[in-house]
């Protein structure tokens, strides 16, 4: 589904990604961990097409297409979803309207008819249940006045609405209390099928109790320096990154 080969990217002349190699297949869950500033969020942003970053080398194949050739919106319509670490507030634009436009843009891209108002409402109610999102929130402006937990639930609600092939969740667990974490993580698990894939970026093992990864990668200084299975996350939680980083230096 996703093949990242020797990806280099920089921001304002500073190289952040220094040769990322990563392959994600349908049905898999990957976790990306690593110390602050190692490039985790940058990787997510570059895959999504954030124009703040410049790709200086490498290639990315997504569903057989060269991802880097496409605009941000086309990547999204092709089935790439980014769960934002800091979801953005959009005053005056209601959640319901925002998602309706997004869903229908995606349908148009696939050559499908737009949803009728009734179909859309039904879909929205059904998907709100995935993360126990209060449907009243859908009549409010996007993320405006939402609590930290509501914002993150709202990201997963949007993921449910858009049904992406690949979801990259950038620190979706940050700032969540135990209950919200359970709801958000369980929501992600419910959405996982053998047809799609999930990449979770996280600092904490606790998220991975719910979203069990097939692979855990450690990103350090812009490269994946180690890949293990779910037990790696436990080890990192106990021992930190030092043992890996020290190895890496040698």
């Amino acid at each position: 589904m996703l093949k990242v080969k020797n990806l280099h990217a920089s921001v304002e002349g500073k190289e952040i990604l220094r040769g990322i190699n990563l392959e994600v297949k349908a049905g898999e869950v990957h976790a990306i961990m690593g110390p602050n500033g190692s490039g985790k969020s940058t990787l997510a942003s570059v895959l999504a097409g954030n124009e703040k970053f410049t790709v200086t080398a490498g290639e990315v194949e997504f569903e057989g297409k060269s991802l880097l050739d496409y605009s941000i919106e086309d990547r999204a319509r092709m089935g790439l979803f980014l769960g934002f670490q800091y979801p953005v507030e959009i005053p005056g634009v209601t959640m319901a309207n925002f998602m309706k436009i997004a869903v229908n843009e995606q349908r148009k891209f696939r050559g499908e008819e737009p949803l009728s108002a009734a179909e859309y409402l039904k879909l929205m109610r059904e998907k709100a249940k995935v993360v126990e999102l209060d449907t009243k929130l859908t009549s409010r402006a996007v993320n405006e006045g939402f609590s930290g937990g509501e914002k993150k639930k709202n990201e997963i609600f949007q993921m449910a609405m858009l049904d992406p092939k690949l979801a990259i969740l950038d620190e979706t667990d940050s700032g969540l209390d135990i209950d919200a974490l359970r709801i958000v993580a369980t929501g992600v698990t419910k959405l996982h099928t053998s047809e799609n894939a999930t990449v979770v970026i996280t600092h904490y093992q606790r998220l991975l109790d719910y979203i069990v990864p097939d692979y855990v990668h450690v990103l350090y200084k812009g490269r994946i320096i180690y890949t293990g299975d779910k037990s790696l996350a436990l080890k990192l939680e106990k021992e930190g990154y030092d043992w890996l980083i020290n190895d890496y230096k040698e």
Partner: protein
Amino acid sequence: MELHDMISGFEPVAERLTLSGKEQRTAVAVDPETLDVELASGAEGHLVVVHEKPTASTLRVHLAEGASLVLNELFVAEAFTTVEVDQEAESRLKLTAVELGSANARYTIQLRGAHAESEVNGLFLTGGEEHAELTIRTNHLVADCSSRSIARGVAGGKSVGRFEGMVYVAKDAQRTDAEQQNRNLLLSDQARIETMPQLEIYADDVKCSHGATVGQMDQEAIYYMRQRGIDEQQARRLQIAGFVEELVMHCDEESWCSAVSELLEAKLHTI
């Protein structure tokens, strides 16, 4: 709903609109040269004024004690208008002005009786080489009145938008509660916004606030919307629409809302 469907849904008036006490009516005036509006004590009115021609227009409104008026004014042509509202005790005014392009609208609200309340919401939206002006002056002449003047402007292309606000509080107008706020969105580096929010206060026991901001499009919000599959142009329009609709969509008349919303959407495609 289209503009003309909205207009045809109301009772047409010209030159004079008089509402006696306890009467409730909705009326529309199209390009009035002069219009005198008189609401007797206790009357409730709703007046829509539409400017489709580039003419000069004068509106004089008198709200007797306890009268209440919703006034919606829409500019689709470059009209020059002066609106003066006299408010007696416990009267209420809710005014919304929408300038969809070049226009010049001046509002003067006189709060003459205790516990009179006024709320003025104004908006201009300009593109190309358009020039819009909006002036809201509220005079608190007696004690215990409240006023809110909220203006928003959006300027794209090489257009110019100008807001002038003045809240005047007379010496005896104690316990005045006045708020004045102006927020603007600049869409291009060649567009210009001028804003002059002013207070002139001679009483010493008042609550008055004023503020003005000029900002630009939120690129993070555009990125967020694009990541959900919405193209850049539409994301920009959504953001501008969100900025302006917050102000004009708190309205009491469904057909006005829907007509204005349609005109706004069409305008957004041009700036």
